[in-house]
């Protein structure tokens, strides 16, 4: 496992840059990881998606269906990509401190 230093804080990450200790996640961690996705300003829209992902993950242990994410947050997928250029799985999940989604997704 590698470590990464962001804004003076050090995190353990996998080789795709996903946080390996989901329990330490908080808003500062989200902001730090957002910088790795080229997001300098976490807007309210970013937070809506991040909080939904976070809550779902705490409940079910995995990331939600992208379709469900869109339907329940009211965002179209294209908007999700505008906010998180690497997409919901590789971008938004990373900022929300979820492990990288597994399987053929």
């Amino acid at each position: 496992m590698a470590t990464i230093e962001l804004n003076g804080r050090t995190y353990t990450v996998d080789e795709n840059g996903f946080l390996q200790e989901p329990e330490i996640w908080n808003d500062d961690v989200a902001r730090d990881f957002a910088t790795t996705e080229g997001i300098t300003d976490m807007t309210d829209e970013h937070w809506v998606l991040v909080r939904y992902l976070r809550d779902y993950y705490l409940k079910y242990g995995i990331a939600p269906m992208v379709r469900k994410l869109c339907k329940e947050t009211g965002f179209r997928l294209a908007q999700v990509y505008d906010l998180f250029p690497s997409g919901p799985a590789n971008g938004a999940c990373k900022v929300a401190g979820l492990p990288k989604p597994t399987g053929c997704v």
Partner: protein
Amino acid sequence: MTPRTRFSDLSRRDPERLLHLEPADLPPLPLDTTAPSRPFPVTRPIADTVAYALDDTRALALPNPKTREEEDELVRAFLSGMEKLFSRENNWTFLQPLVLSMEHCAHCQTCSEACHVFESSGHAELYRPTFRSEIFRRLYFEYVKGGGLVSAWQHGSVDLDWPLVARLAELAYRCNLCRRCAQTCPMGVDNGLIAHEIRKVFSQEMGIAPGELHAAGSMLQLKAGSSTGMIPAAVKDNVQFIDEEMTEKTGTTIETPWDVEGADILLIHNAGEILAWPENPGAFGVILNAAGVSWTMSSEIAGYDAVNYGLWYDDAQMARVALLHVQAARKLKVKKIVVGECGHAHKALLVTADRLLAGDMRITRESFLTVLRDIVMSGRLKFDPDRNDFPVTLHDPCNMVRLMGIVEPQREILRRVCPRFREMHPHGVDNYCCGGGSGFAIMSGSGFRDWRSQVSGRKKLQQILDAFSDCLDPSIHKYVCAPCSNCKGQIRDMLAYHDLWKRHGILYGGLVELVVNAMEDVDPGFIEWEWR
């Protein structure tokens, strides 16, 4: 490009990678060159993180021995695993074709030009399909067959040490196992099989496999029920959501039957579809319900996820998962298992499992392609093909088409429901791999996504662009039909990588979605022209 790689380079101990590709090394794509292209290769210094780097990416987290003794221990483990490959007790799956492939290569190189990785790399010697095979063959003659001076003279030799073993492990993950080379070989030598068998040595004997395929793949599937991590309760919850969506979208009530004892068909999807492309399992439900088919899904562990990643790297894992699939079917006493749009699941459960299943375990297994063809051609559903009035091309998943020879059913369907269907060239059993085969589509760390988007997938990308060369205008919506989750994921990633939805209006999806989009009895507009 770096100079032509030689076998002896694999033993090098300097930090330089053996192969480094520059954009100019790669064959040009028929793309608008004024648009910005993605830089390649990644600038990440692979050599800093890997002791004996192979090329611009890496698939494995290899051990990092500190002393020569530790290195020798790993080499001994490799040799021990290699010997087991050539015994009937330890290789009940592939011993015979492996021995034939070791003994009968005539070194004619007919296979090389058939390989999309070799061609798309600008003919980098390291990726020549016979390069890794020949190293393995020389080790076979020297260490499995006993070697000796005459053997060394006749077959050649390589220096066996840890750097060579480590690089061979990586090199086994630069082949898609598409077996196009095997198809073209006049002797029937199968370089794809050799790459597969090398992977087996590392996994079965040394516990070395890509994390996406093993720890977060087949192990997770055995534990949770799916490589996606979905437990039975989660999959039922998600499918219920899909049913609601489908009901809303099609105007017909869709309810997926779960655990129905005595159903004709147990349908097993690649569970990735449920999470990433819910319209695919949704479309299956619409078609099967409309056609009045007796079917069910299973909520047993692995009974709802057809994937079997062991197929790519570990026979024991393959067998464990295949047995769960069969058990789920036996428990429900269904007449047969039908595998959904997943190519490697076709190979694992419909073909390779024949080497595993005995007696009453041999339940009937069938591809969705033939089932779907029979439904579409039976006249039970009414179609309005004008609803599919857009250019469609078809990708042939290697495991369904080249391996199993299922060529026409999907074409009969497309000719029935897609008036503007056009072939890629070549196609059918001569197709090219999507570049994501053998697990690559779900591997992305350490520059792997760049590599498969730029090198292993390049030939397929070229075919897609050529198939649509008369209509590249982004205002014309186009559809790449890829009836396999793995291929679909790879094609999605490549289209995104090169921004082809925005630049050229090229979208992708499965086969059942096109069928439902043309069904008269459902509301129009099943296929949504939005990036997904």
